[in-house]
């Protein structure tokens, strides 16, 4: 149940005049906040209380008791203040999330869930049912892209493999039954509110479920660019791992696992076809994306779990093969630390893991081989908790894909209720400059694009959001982030000036693309200058906008436990072995030496395949 202040704020933001779908939004916001980390929750509550206090000071009554017109007046005046506008923009994010869902439910827009196919069998055991003490030949921490590949490789090598996953298993049928926002709160770590501190702050959503972030990614599959592999070879000394031929063969194998193919045009949706049309108009290189979703029905819900079971997230593709080879998955198992035996001749040796269950009790698993696949944001914390984080570069070198979104308003509905692919088309014209534009149309409120305005204006934009096409651009960055701490962790990311320029350039490029596709207006998401109807207007807006004014997200964190030949700069050996301890292998995105510059699922899985093969050979050898 949400507080009076929150209810008042929601009513004011959405111009709630009583009745209709906005009435249910405050409660949904309350449930969403409950899944977020305490700082985000308290921040929102404090912001709501501050707005409520302003209303009380101005009118003598609390926001919830004002008439809709009075609320509109209060909020409009508040939005006119420089600092308050930015604050309201942040507060709008969860409200829009909840509002989008309620509006969709109210309109009955949620198409009846497609008949969910039966998921392939997985050998999942909740940690509550797993014994306190057990043994395995290999423990894989994390069941995402890398963990699944590692488990499959090691299990096929004949080892008894246990995969430990902090989240739980979600079935395709469950995705079909539940509203997107309900799934959102559970499928994402911190309710999707993981933030990297910096100027500007970045939202970095990561998944937490059996299948990891592959459950909630868009299914876009890019092969690692050759120039990235060349950089890994020359700068990090990964001559064997990043060998073009060998790595290409592994990418082939991964693509076979995931059944990667070019997305057919039949269910691409208007968002994607508009991007292709705009690119065609401009003569830019573009095309439908290669995806791991054979038989995609265009449910457009990739980021909250595919309800059709078409997207070959690893829990539908790789993990079943791992389980068929004997691997088992312990769910709701939060690995607290890697156990080591420091008194072994030759230095410390890993001997297992300590795991915490949801009820706070712990279990331990002894295993001579520990494969870290917890993701670039969690692996450094785990290593520090385990006393293995002494290398000065652990937690540093965090690379992400800073991203921003731009929307274009079209005369005709873009969301026509028909099938559409969430991330459908890629525009690679500027990829050489580190900018990759992808037509991305997430469910209401779940994108990084924030509708402009407050009150009636916001309500209007919300009602008209079916006419918006949304493009996103992600930037190949210079690693500038750090993962700090041991337990929950604090992310710090300083955007490099070059990357800031790239982001602004990407906004212009997306605007140009939208206008070329026939958009009436380009919505920049910048509160002070929300719309531009021509390229000249857009340039004028961008001339005054700094990157801090943009709504930024970041995806694909990598590089925090980088592999490399140089012991001074790389915490892990080129074959994945963590330096300073025996028996620990880093197989996940944290091992990537630098930004892969494309959606990284294939790259991560190919690296995991290489590392897991080396780990398996170390045990059997």
């Amino acid at each position, binding site marked *: 149940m949400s507080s009076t202040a929150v209810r008042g704020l929601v009513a004011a933001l959405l111009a709630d005049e009583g009745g209709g779908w906005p009435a249910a939004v405050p409660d949904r916001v309350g449930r969403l906040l409950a899944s977020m980390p305490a700082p985000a929750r308290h921040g929102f509550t404090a912001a709501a209380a501050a707005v409520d206090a302003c209303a009380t000071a101005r009118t003598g009554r609390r926001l919830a008791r004002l008439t809709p017109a009075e609320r509109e007046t209060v909020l409009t005046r508040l939005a006119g203040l420089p600092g308050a506008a930015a604050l309201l923009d942040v507060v709008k994010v969860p409200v829009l999330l909840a509002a989008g869902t309620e509006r969709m439910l109210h309109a009955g827009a949620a198409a009846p869930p497609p008949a969910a196919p039966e998921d392939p069998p997985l050998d999942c055991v909740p940690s509550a049912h797993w014994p*306190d*003490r*057990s043994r395995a030949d290999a423990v894989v921490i994390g069941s995402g892209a890398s963990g699944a590949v590692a488990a499959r490789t090691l299990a096929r090598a004949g080892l008894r493999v246990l995969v430990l996953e902090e989240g739980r298993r979600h079935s395709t049928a469950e995705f079909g039954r539940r509203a997107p926002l309900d799934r959102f709160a559970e499928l994402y770590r911190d309710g999707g509110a993981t933030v990297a501190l910096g100027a500007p702050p970045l939202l970095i959503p990561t998944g937490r479920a059996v299948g990891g972030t592959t459950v909630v990614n868009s299914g876009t599959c890019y092969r690692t660019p050759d120039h990235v592999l060349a950089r890994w070879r020359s700068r990090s000394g990964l001559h064997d791992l990043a060998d073009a031929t060998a790595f290409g063969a592994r990418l082939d194998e991964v693509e076979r696992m995931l059944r990667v193919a070019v997305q057919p045009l039949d269910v691409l949706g208007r968002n994607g076809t508009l991007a292709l049309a705009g690119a065609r108009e401009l003569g830019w290189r573009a095309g439908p994306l290669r995806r791991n979703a054979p038989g995609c029905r265009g449910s457009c819900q990739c980021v909250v779990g595919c309800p059709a079971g078409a997207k070959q997230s690893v829990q539908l593709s790789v993990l079943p093969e791992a389980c068929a080879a004997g691997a088992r998955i312990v769910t709701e198992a939060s690995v607290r630390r890697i156990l080591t*035996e420091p*008194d072994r001749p030759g230095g410390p040796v890993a001997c297992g893991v*300590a795991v915490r269950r949801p009820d706070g009790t712990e*279990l331990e698993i002894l295993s001579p081989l520990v494969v870290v696949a917890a993701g670039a944001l969690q692996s450094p914390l785990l290593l520090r908790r385990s006393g293995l984080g002494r290398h000065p570069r652990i937690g540093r070198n965090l690379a992400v894909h800073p991203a921003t979104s731009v929307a274009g308003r079209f005369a005709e509905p873009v969301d026509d209720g028909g099938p559409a692919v969430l991330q459908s088309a890629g525009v690679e014209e500027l990829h050489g400059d580190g900018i990759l534009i992808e037509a991305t149309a997430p469910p209401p409120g779940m994108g990084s694009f924030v509708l402009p305005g407050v009150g009636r204006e916001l309500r209007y934009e919300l009602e008209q959001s079916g006419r918006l096409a949304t493009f996103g651009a992600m930037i190949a960055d210079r690693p500038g982030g750090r993962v700090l701490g041991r337990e929950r962790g604090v992310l710090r990311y300083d955007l490099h000036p070059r990357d800031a320029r790239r982001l602004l350039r990407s906004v212009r490029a997306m605007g140009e693309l939208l206008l070329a596709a026939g958009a009436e207006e380009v919505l920049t998401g910048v509160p002070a200058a929300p719309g531009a109807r021509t390229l000249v207007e857009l340039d004028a807006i961008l001339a005054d906008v700094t990157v801090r004014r943009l709504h930024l997200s970041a995806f694909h964190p990598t590089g925090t436990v980088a592999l490399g030949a140089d012991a001074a700069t790389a915490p892990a050996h080129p074959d994945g072995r963590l330096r300073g301890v025996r028996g620990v292998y880093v197989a996940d995105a944290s091992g990537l030496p630098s930004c892969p510059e494309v959606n990284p699922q294939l790259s991560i899985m190919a690296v995991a395949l290489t590392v897991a093969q080396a780990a398996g050979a170390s045990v059997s050898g």
Partner: protein
Amino acid sequence: MSAAERATVFAETMTGTVRLRGEDADRPIRADLTVRCGTLMLPHRTTPARATGRVRIAGRADDTRAAGTLEISPLARRRIHYRITFSLDGRPCVLEGWKSIGLRRPLASLTVLPFTLTREGSPDPVGTGVLRFRTTTALGPFLASMRFPRRDEARAAWAPRSTGTPGRTEVWYTTATDPATGTGLWLHHEVVTPAGSGSPYAHGWAAVFPGKGADPVVHARFGPVPWPPEPSGGFTAAGVEAVPGRLRGTAGPLSWDLTEECGDDGPLYTFPRWSWRRPLLPAAQIVPSPRAHYTGVVRHGPDRLELRRAPGASARIYGHGNARRWAWLHADLGGGDVLEVVAAVSMRPGLDRLPPLVFLRLRKDGRVWPRGGLRSAIGWAGRGRFRADLGLPEWTVTGRAGRRRVTVRVTQHADRTLELGYTDPDGSPATCRNSETADARVVLERRGRGGWRTEAEWTLDGTAHAEVGDR
């Protein structure tokens, strides 16, 4: 005293509950373990240890021969790891778990042992549970049981003791029973330094006791030959060798070549430990390998006896000579338990008027009873001493110490008994009647609230090794 010279022994009792597969309720479980570390247990080191004892699960298991290993590493690895094999429903089952030492809750982490039960070769658990070391009831006995004995190497006990002092006799003897045929074997190696001016000489004999008296006992002597020996760590003379791990030689038509695998239980001191180090008593006996196994061949003319891990023991005697009257029993009771009895009347003036002094050592479940080395012989100033009734074909020993009492009844059938003449260093003769296929019955009772109850009962049918001697 360095850590390398000391071992660690302690007893630990833990109780708790276990949930077996297919059941919907917990069962009580109890583990009584005796833990032996080969070195001094130091908390900052990792100490491997062996554990023996009893594991009980109410209604499903009661195994007094549970055995396994521990890895004690409370600081270095922050773990005390238990792996105990016991019998559950008649099939071997492994109890594996570890106490995970944490600084947040040090007491709980030192006393709580979560475990998993698995069958050998199958990773699927057949049960899970938690054993707890109850500090209120178990800490006292645990601390009282803590011992840091010197490490007794069987190898060191084999080394010759003789320093050339006149009037000493020193014996290495080995007895074994072939489990396939029931045949008993006796190898006796002796060095005698005569009283007076004679030179030390070595001699001995071998004897084969066919099972259940199927054939007559065969024996043959070797030596005497001059001593001192070549440096070998044991007895080496007249082409006969009795050194740690190896027994071989020829005596008349008999020849033997055996390897010895001595268990890792450590020597059994039949007499007080100090009496072996400082020869203050007329003689002392020690069993360096109380539960050894012998593999090899014993030939008797055309006959050939193949031994394959034949259970037996090797013992040593050092002293002034044979007793006036004596009886000896070595009984391998199975399951790691062993009984050694020597009852003797000394030749010393004054002492020869006493009744036989009984030295009885029962190693059961890894612990030796009675605990005191002289307890069975002299009791409390004579009161409560163990009593022996020596004779043939039957002799008995009875005694009580603490809340236990024992009755040992040995039968040496005449047709399975070999009569041999001994010669003391002073030249006086003695007669020994030995049987390596004797019968024995041992009853161990424990006194509780309801009076005496039988704790254990063993019947050895032709597998006891016994001897009675007199003059």
